Structures are given as C-alpha cells and as structure tokens.
C-alpha cells in the first residue's frame, strides 16, 4: 500500500465522491429507463462517472472496483462510439445498477473498515457478454483494445532542398529507456521526438511506428528507443534536453564522427515529403473563449455553486450561536438591571435581539439540506420492489425541495425506506386484484414533504388496500398487545397498534418487511428526532403515514415556569393554552387523580411537583397555573406554580452521566444563569 498518502482523509474523500457518483448514476439510469432509450449526453455522463470511479479506485488500490468500472467504461465507450441500434435498455440498466450496487457494497465495507473482498468476476463476465451481444446483433466487429480516433498516417519529414543531408552540424545517435511503469512508452517517445525537433533535425528513430502502433510501446520497453538526429547545438545542450525529459533513464548519447557511419546513415534516410504537421496551429474559429461569468455555464449535472464545509465547523458554529443566544439573554435579563428604567438600553437590546435572531436563522439555514436526495433514493426501492413482487407501481415525489436540518437527513432514509417497502409489500394489491376491483393501474405511492410551522411533514401515501381493522385487532389479540377492550378503541388507536413492538410476527415475514422488526423501528427512529408518526387509512382506498419532525433541534421558543424553587421550560409549540383554574373546572376521578374541564372536555392533569418530587407551597390547583399541553393526539394539563415568561432557549443535552430521564428533553440556561429543565411533552404523557 502506498505510504505516500495519509490515507484517512483521502479514503473519506474517495468514499464520499464515489458514493456521490453512484447516486448520480442511479438517477441517470432511472430517468432513462422511463424514456426507454439513452441520449448521447447521458451515455457520455455514465462513461465519465465510470471513468472517474476507475481512476480513483485505482489510486486507492481497490483494483476490483477499478476493473469493474473499467469494463463498464469500455461498454459505454462502445455504445457512445458505435451507437448500436439494437440495445436491450432494460438489461443494460440492470447491468449498470448491479455494478453500482457492487461498488456501493464495497464502499460500505471500506467505510466500516472491513475487508473489501467482493468478487466481481460474475459481473465482469456479464458485462463482457452484453458487449458481445451488442456487437453481434449490430454486426459491429471487435474494437481493438485501444480506442483510436482517426489520425492521418504520419511519417518523418525531411526537407527536399538539401543537397547533402548531413552538413556541418553535429550528428548524434541516442538510445534510451523510459522509467519502468511510466506507461505508453510509444507516446512518450513521440513526445520526445516532437520536442527534440525544436533543437534538432530528426532523421530516423526506431521503432518507427510509434504513432500508429501502440504495440511499439512493448518494443521500447524491452529494447529501448533509438534516434538519429543532427543539431547545431553542442553535446551539452542535447544532454540537458534529455536530462530534462521526464521518465528518461539510461541515456546513451553519441556524437557520430566516424565518416563511414555518416555515409551509412545518409543512405538509410528516405527522402519522402509528407505533409504531416508536427505541431498544429489553430485557426481562429476553433478558439472557444469561455464566458467570463460563471453563471452562464450550465452544468449538466445540475450542481449549484457550492463549497463543501466540514460538518464539525458547522456544529461549532451552531454551538456558538447557541451560546450567543444564552449570553444575550444573560445580559438583557440580568438581575442587576431589574429595577432600572432604561429606555435607550431597551431600544438597543431590541436591536441586538433582532440581529441575533437573524444570525440564528441564517446559521440554521446553513445546516438545512433539501430532502431531494433522500426522497429520490426511494425511486430505486420502488422500482426494485415492484419488479420483484410483480406489481405495477409508480412513485411520485412532491416537495422534494423541502429543507430539513442535516441531522435529520441522516436518520430519515431508513424509516422512509421501511414505509415505502411496507406500502408496496402489504398495501398495494397485485395487478390482477386491482383490475378486479376496478382500481387504477399502475398503483401509486406518493411521498410528499412540506413544512408546517416549526415542523416538517413527510407523508407516504399509497392507493392500495388500506388498513383492515379486523385483521389488525386479531393480530394484536394474538400477540397479547391489547391493553384496552377493543370496543373502546378509536379508529386511530387501532391503526396505531401496528406500531407496537412485536406486532409483526414470524408468520408473515416477507423478504422486505415484517422481519419481526416492524413499524416500531420507524417510530423509534422518528421519536429520536423528536418527531411523531401518525397513520390514517380508508379501507380499499389507501393509507397515509405522516412523519412529523420538528424543524430545528437546537433552539426553540419556550415558556419558562416555576415549581417551588425549580425552573422548567415547555416548548411553546406544545402549549395550547394556560389559565388559572377555578374550583368548578376541577374534578377528581374515583382514584383521586385531578382532571380539568375545558370547554366541555375532560383532561388529565400532571402535577409537576409530584411527578418530579419538588417542594412547593402551591399544591392547590386554584392557586397555580394549568398549561394545556398537546402531543400528537394526547392533550393534558400540567400544573405549575407560575409562568415566568417566554424565551428563546437553546436546548442543551443533559450530561451523559445522567442517563435519559423520562419527561425531560434536556435543559437550558436562563438569563440569570439558572438551569431550567426542558420538559418532554411526549414522554410525560406516556404515563397517562
């Protein structure tokens, strides 16, 4: 392995870039499958992607990837140059996607520091077979190994009007070898001759067919390259020339003085005038001066002007902005200023708040990334599943440009994949069944993303058979998952059963879903992001699963409250309303738990001082404040001593040493330096 590179950053870059290339490739293939043919630009792009993967893989010594890419490159070179009429595009797409999958897998292994030990021989032989098939069906003969462009035959040029060819100048003979492994020795020889011609008149060289015959490289490797030339320059100058030519070794330079030898040489030289330019001048029309404004260059891959930023720096920036928000609060809400009338200060503080807020927004937006790539990955999943299950399904993506925090992107792909697979596997009926029901073909799966206030909504909809309540209830019954009598369950609650761990059993594990893992994996992942999963369905019409994910994780608007001498913060978005209850609004259920009546509906109350074991004087509901908190479908009241006010808070995680505590989402620092614990509204409601 080459020790020339510090491998780590290069390896990372290699993996990153190759993965990018492969995504591009997949997108290209999927786009073109629909069109049932490839246009020139696409072919060229595929060729280039493979070329790049080949080169970088070779640099990193991943030869099995490099060779595979090379074969793919050859295949596309063939298609590009020969433009065969008869191509099985479906098979071609499969082939490219298989190769892409192979490389993807190897990259994963590399990233995990496992052995990248994939065997590419089957794939390579498939590619070669395909190439052979193309040649046969299109009656195109075998291409030579090298890829020639048309070049006119070249021979050496000697001016006609020379009496004696050999004049007073120095006549030299040179024999040299090129460094081992420098490759394309014949071209190097050609370059050498070309440049030598600026100093000397070159009569002859051997091997002579360096331009036409690439096999001459072998001869040069074995036997060296010999040339005869004359020049007005001295030995030293000529020696310098060779010394300064890259890759030359073992130079043997002789000044020919012996008259007999000179005579011999003269006889051997053939005087043939050939019009073959050895340097090409350009006609004015050929020059392309690019436009000076970069914007006018429409890059076909659709990339915008982007710089890549190390994620660590972004994280650092986010942290600093968080600190800044806290520090700003510490200044403005400083206890020292409590009693003072400070109009000018207040004005300035307002301005500061405004600017800090803008900085916040911009920094958050830097971390925001469109969902496009994550959503487009689903195209492949839909295609593969539909093929394998023999169902006709198309995928529609709406709102791909919706942006989410970078953190979210990394964790959204798996749940989405699971949902899509589920929809196709269990939701969509096979074509026959759909026809019988009079439903449209192909079936549709729609992924729609949109932002809604502080959240992002991603919906996976299908127009399949919908959820069957009876089936769900039965399964839940069989797996002992029913905690409530069936008759008391709302439709939503029944649907939500499919998210319960253990819902999917071995009995109906298909290859793609229900591996006893089930939808609870989806919920866990989404909850980790602070989001919720909602499900809705109409029998025979379809199902919609909605992922609701808070847009920003780090800074939220919170309402600070006090219980005893402890402070808590509740995310504003979870609060429906707050009020001081009057006696008649409070009722107690048979077990003594307090409940509050709001506009005719009854809600449970969580007494924070009891829940968190905090000392306080305020124990009577009518002396404190009830805040109605909402989490997904559950609404409940939280009883606190008093409200302190709204504030932008930076969510800080509780230290690792303190393990996760139910009901707490983190903590934050108040203006005066006190710590306030941030409530996890979803977690608190679990016990109700």
């Amino acid at each position, binding site marked *: 392995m*080459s020790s*020339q*590179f510090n491998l780590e*950053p*290069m390896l990372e*870059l*290699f993996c990153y*870039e*190759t993965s990018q290339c492969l995504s591009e490739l997949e997108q290209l293939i999927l786009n073109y499958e629909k069109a049932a043919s490839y246009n020139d630009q696409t072919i*060229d*792009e595929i060729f*280039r992607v493979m*070329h*790049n993967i*080949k*080169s*970088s893989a*070779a*640099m990193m*010594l991943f030869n099995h990837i490099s060779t595979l890419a090379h074969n793919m490159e050859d295949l596309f070179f063939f298609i590009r140059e020969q433009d065969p009429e008869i191509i099985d595009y479906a098979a071609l797409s499969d082939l490219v996607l298989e190769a892409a999958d192979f490389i993807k897998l190897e990259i994963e292994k590399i990233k995990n520091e496992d052995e990248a030990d994939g065997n590419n021989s089957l794939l390579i032989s498939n590619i070669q077979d395909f190439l052979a098939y193309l040649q046969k069906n299109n009656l195109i003969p075998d291409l030579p*190994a*090298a*890829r*020639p*462009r048309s*070049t006119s035959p070249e021979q050496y040029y000697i001016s006609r009007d020379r009496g004696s060819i050999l004049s007073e100048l120095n006549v030299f003979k040179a024999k040299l070898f090129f*460094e081992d492994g*420098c*490759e*394309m020795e*014949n*071209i*190097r020889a*050609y*370059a050498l001759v*070309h*440049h030598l011609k600026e100093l000397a008149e070159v009569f002859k060289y051997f091997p002579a067919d360096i*331009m036409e015959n*690439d096999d001459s490289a072998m001869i040069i490797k074995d036997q060296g390259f010999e040339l005869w030339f004359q020049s007005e320059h001295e030995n030293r100058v000529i020696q310098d020339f060779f*010394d*300064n*030519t*890259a*890759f030359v070794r073992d130079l043997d330079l002789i000044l020919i003085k012996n008259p007999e030898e000179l005579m011999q040489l003269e006889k051997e030289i053939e005087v043939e005038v050939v019009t073959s*330019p*050895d*340097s*090409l001048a*350009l006609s004015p029309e*050929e*020059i*392309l*001066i*690019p436009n*000076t404004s*970069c914007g006018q*260059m429409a*890059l*076909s*891959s659709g990339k915008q002007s982007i710089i890549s930023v190390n994620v660590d720096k972004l994280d650092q920036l986010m942290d600093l902005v968080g600190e800044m928000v806290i520090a700003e609060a510490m200044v403005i809400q400083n206890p020292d200023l409590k009693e003072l009338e400070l109009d000018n200060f207040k004005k300035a503080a307002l301005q500061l708040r405004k600017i800090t807020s803008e900085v916040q927004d911009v920094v958050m937006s830097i971390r925001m990334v469109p969902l496009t790539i994550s959503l487009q990955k689903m195209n492949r999943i839909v295609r593969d599943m539909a093929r394998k299950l023999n169902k006709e399904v198309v995928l529609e993506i709406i709102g791909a440009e919706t942006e989410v925090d970078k953190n979210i992107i990394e964790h959204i792909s798996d749940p989405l994949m699971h949902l899509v697979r589920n929809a196709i596997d269990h939701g969509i009926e096979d074509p026959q069944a759909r026809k019988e029901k009079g439903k449209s073909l192909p079936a549709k799966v729609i992924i729609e993303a949109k932002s809604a206030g502080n959240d992002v909504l991603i919906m996976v909809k299908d127009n399949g058979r919908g959820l069957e309540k009876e089936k769900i209830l039965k399964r839940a019954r069989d797996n002992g998952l029913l905690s409530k009598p069936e008759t008391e369950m709302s439709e939503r609650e029944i649907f939500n059963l499919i998210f319960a761990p253990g819902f999917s059993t071995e009995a109906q594990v298909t290859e793609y879903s229900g591996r006893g893992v089930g939808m609870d994996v989806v919920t866990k992942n989404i909850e980790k992001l602070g989001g919720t999963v909602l499900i809705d369905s109409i029998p025979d019409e379809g199902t919609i699963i909605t992922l609701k994910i808070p847009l920003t994780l780090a800074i939220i608007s919170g309402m600070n409250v006090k219980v005893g001498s402890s402070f808590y913060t509740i995310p504003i978005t979870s609060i429906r309303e707050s009020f001081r209850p009057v006696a008649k609004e409070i009722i107690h259920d048979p077990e003594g738990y307090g409940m509050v009546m709001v506009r005719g509906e009854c809600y449970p109350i969580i007494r924070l001082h009891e829940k968190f074991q905090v000392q306080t004087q305020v124990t009577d509901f009518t002396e404190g404040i009830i805040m109605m908190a909402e989490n997904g479908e559950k609404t409940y009241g939280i009883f606190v001593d008093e409200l302190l006010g709204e504030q932008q808070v930076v969510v800080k995680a509780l230290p690792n040493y303190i393990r996760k505590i139910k009901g707490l989402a983190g903590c934050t620092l108040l203006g005066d330096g006190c710590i306030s614990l941030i409530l996890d509204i979803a977690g608190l409601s679990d016990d109700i």
Partner: protein
Amino acid sequence: MTRVLIVDDAAFMRAALRKILDNNGYEIVGEAENGAVGVKKYQELQPDIVTMDITMPEMDGLEALKNIRQFDPRAKVIMISAMGQESLVKESVMYGAQTFIVKPFNEKYVVETLAKIIKK
C-alpha cells in the same frame, strides 16, 4: 514557489494531486472542475504549470489545452491521462502539451515530471 493550476473533474483526483504537490513545495494557485473553468482560471491566475485531466464535462482536456496554448504559447501543460487514451495523448502532444502522467500516478513520477518541466 512554482505555481500550479489543477484541472480535473474528480474532486478526489484533485485532492490526491494537491496532496502530492503540497508535500513537495509546490503552490496550488487554483483548481478547476472542467476545461472551460480551467481556461478561465489560467487566464486569471497565469500559473507556471497546469495539470490537465483529459476526460471532463463541458470542455475536455484537449480543447482546454488548445485554448490555453492559443492564449499563451509558452504555457506548460501536463496531461493527466488514463491507460487506453493513446490517441488523445498523441493529439495533446501535437497541440503542445509538455508531457503526460498516467493514472493511477505515484508521487515520485509526478514530482519528477513537474521538476523537469519547470526547468525548460
């Protein structure tokens, strides 16, 4: 320090070359991801040497070479090629490329090549 412009559409290859050149005392004055940008940057930056990948989108290495040589007949361009690109390399020599390096390249060759070219 010798000033170098790196032209290659693959970020990985640019980074690899940059690493080698950095380690050996060369100054990278710019990078370009296709021939068109390469030509433009050549005009702006006037580097001492250009390393030019052959296969690129928008404008390939050969075209860019031609353009650069037209703009500056003394431009020193080193082509970066892959195996099997014999004709393209031939043409580039004809259009004035100083020499070429074959991918995958190693540090020794790159350094040697640049050192020799800059002397000319």
